[in-house]
């Protein structure tokens, strides 16, 4: 400890201590903040700048200022609105499904037995398989010509289903593959959360003669609210950016049935070389995502406080 030198008046030394303390506190926040500012500030500024310009492809620098033109073009494009709609449908189907499945499976997987550890670790694999390979393997299994899926559901008298060629089923396919891939993430957090539930509360409830539904609705669920909220936000931020699965499994088709917004932005930028339009869409999506995330953060805080 460096002790203040006796010559200094006490007040000044206290100020020094306070300042160093403040600096120390900021020291925790600043590495992350500095790293993110250094890596993100210019790219975000560039994207916003490009979205108001005509991009000069020979330098990739913003050319002539065109005001809101790129935004108007984007808003006039029915493909953009379609992509937003498709993304909305996908999120509305996939997120609740993954949350419910994730927590349900966590309950099953948490049963204590010898193989529990292995089961939990193996459950990670779907997350690790590269999206291109995952999409391709699912295509192999779902193809009506040589796939297993129709052979299996045929055994119980269903199908055949054109999983990838029918617009509604293609959306279902995307939701299924995405759920297969990301439910393990929810499960892992949920397993941990369920493990951490205080056992004494349940014993007390059992003595009071509570049935499992009462226990679930009045004890388990309220205790899980913060975790559910946090998992939901992390998954939401990941899902809203999904495009690799759609690219690999259906390439956005048939028609535009699975062309989620990030896939459309990718196509506009990297295929059609319409970087300015893609930037305008990215800004719109950024603002929309930020607004919804803020709503979710606020909502989760309110839920946390209520319980």
């Amino acid at each position, binding site marked *: 400890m460096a002790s203040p030198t006796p010559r200094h008046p006490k007040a000044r030394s206290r100020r020094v201590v306070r300042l160093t303390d403040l600096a*120390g506190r900021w020291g925790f*926040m600043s590495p992350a903040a500095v790293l993110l500012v250094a890596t993100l500030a210019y790219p975000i500024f560039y994207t916003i700048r490009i979205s108001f310009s005509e991009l000069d492809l020979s330098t*990739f620098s913003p050319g002539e200022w065109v005001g809101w033109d790129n935004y108007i073009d984007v808003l006039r494009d029915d493909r953009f609105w379609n992509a937003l709609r498709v993304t909305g449908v996908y999120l509305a189907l996939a997120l609740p499904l993954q949350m419910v499945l994730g927590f349900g499976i966590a309950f099953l997987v948490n049963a204590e037995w010898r193989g529990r550890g292995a089961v939990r670790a193996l459950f990670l694999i779907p997350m*690790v398989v590269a999206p291109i390979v995952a999409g391709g393997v699912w295509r192999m299994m779902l193809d009506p010509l040589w796939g297993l899926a129709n052979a299996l559901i045929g055994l119980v008298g269903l199908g055949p289903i054109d999983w990838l060629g029918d617009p509604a089923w293609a959306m279902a396919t995307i939701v299924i593959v995405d759920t297969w891939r990301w439910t393990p993430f929810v499960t892992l957090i949920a397993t941990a959360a369920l493990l951490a539930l205080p056992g004494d509360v349940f014993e007390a409830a059992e003595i009071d003669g509570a049935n499992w539904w009462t226990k679930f609705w009045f004890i388990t669920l309220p205790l899980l609210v913060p975790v559910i909220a946090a*998992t939901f936000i992390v998954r939401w931020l990941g899902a809203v950016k999904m495009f690799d699965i759609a690219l690999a499994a259906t390439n956005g088709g048939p028609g535009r049935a699975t062309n989620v917004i*990030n896939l459309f932005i990718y196509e506009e930028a990297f295929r059609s070389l319409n970087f300015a339009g893609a930037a305008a869409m990215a800004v719109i999506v950024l603002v929309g995502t930020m607004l919804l995330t803020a709503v979710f953060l606020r909502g989760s805080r309110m839920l946390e406080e209520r319980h």
Partner: protein
Amino acid sequence: MSGASALGVRARHRRRRLLGHRLRVGGGVFTCALFLFPVFWMVLTSFKQPKDIFTTPPTFFFTPTIETYVSYMGRADVLHRMLNTVIVAAGAGAVSLVAGAMAGYALARVPLRGAATIGAVIMLSRGVPPIALAVPMFLVARKLGLLDRHITLILAYCTFLIPYVMWLMRGFFKALPEELEEAAKLDGCSRFGAFFRIIVPISLPGLLSTLIFSVILAWEELLFALVLTNRVATTIPVAIAGIAGDSVNGANWGALTAVGTLTVVPVVAFALLVQKWLIKGLADGATKG
């Protein structure tokens, strides 16, 4: 209530609970098998010759070949890329873990005006579509002469890993009793001292679990790796994308599934090793999110 009937009720309860337990175990194993079936199909395909892959009906019995593995492992660049992937994933995981955990600690425990706002902004920054970031990041990296370097990919991955780590670790630190730091302060520790000497060792399982998730996300990242690297620092997902996009002969699904299988092995081995810590860490970190 007579003693005998009470005993009977308890026995019935125990039987029912045992049945419930068995159903849970069975259900868990069944669900796991269901989720792993595509993985099984991937591994099976990797041992097939190309002409055995797309048969009607699909074949379970065929003459297995490890030729694909041999020929792809023999290609120098697969091993080189694997090494790059390890470096980049480990580096990005480590950097974002340190920076993210400290930020998470600041949000959870350090009285700091404005920190909550910064934390919210960091979370909101995850809304940027990654495609929008790739091109400007390329331009910056080129300007700084950092193209095709490991450090560039590590920094690029930090943009999405740090918010994630911060969010998880915030919850984890909130769950710790506050007396820990007070005791540390009484012992004359500075904030940093308390954090590194007391909080970090206690939070090791949580930190490790977060590290694993970060490593998985960095491990499979494709877009930034494609744009920011050429030859020196290029990663395995880029190789996989290349095999998938073979526009000359048609995608080689044997090779694709073989390389896909190879990339899964190290991560699963890693996860198996630390999964006890992982579950424990997540349990503590997630409850008080």
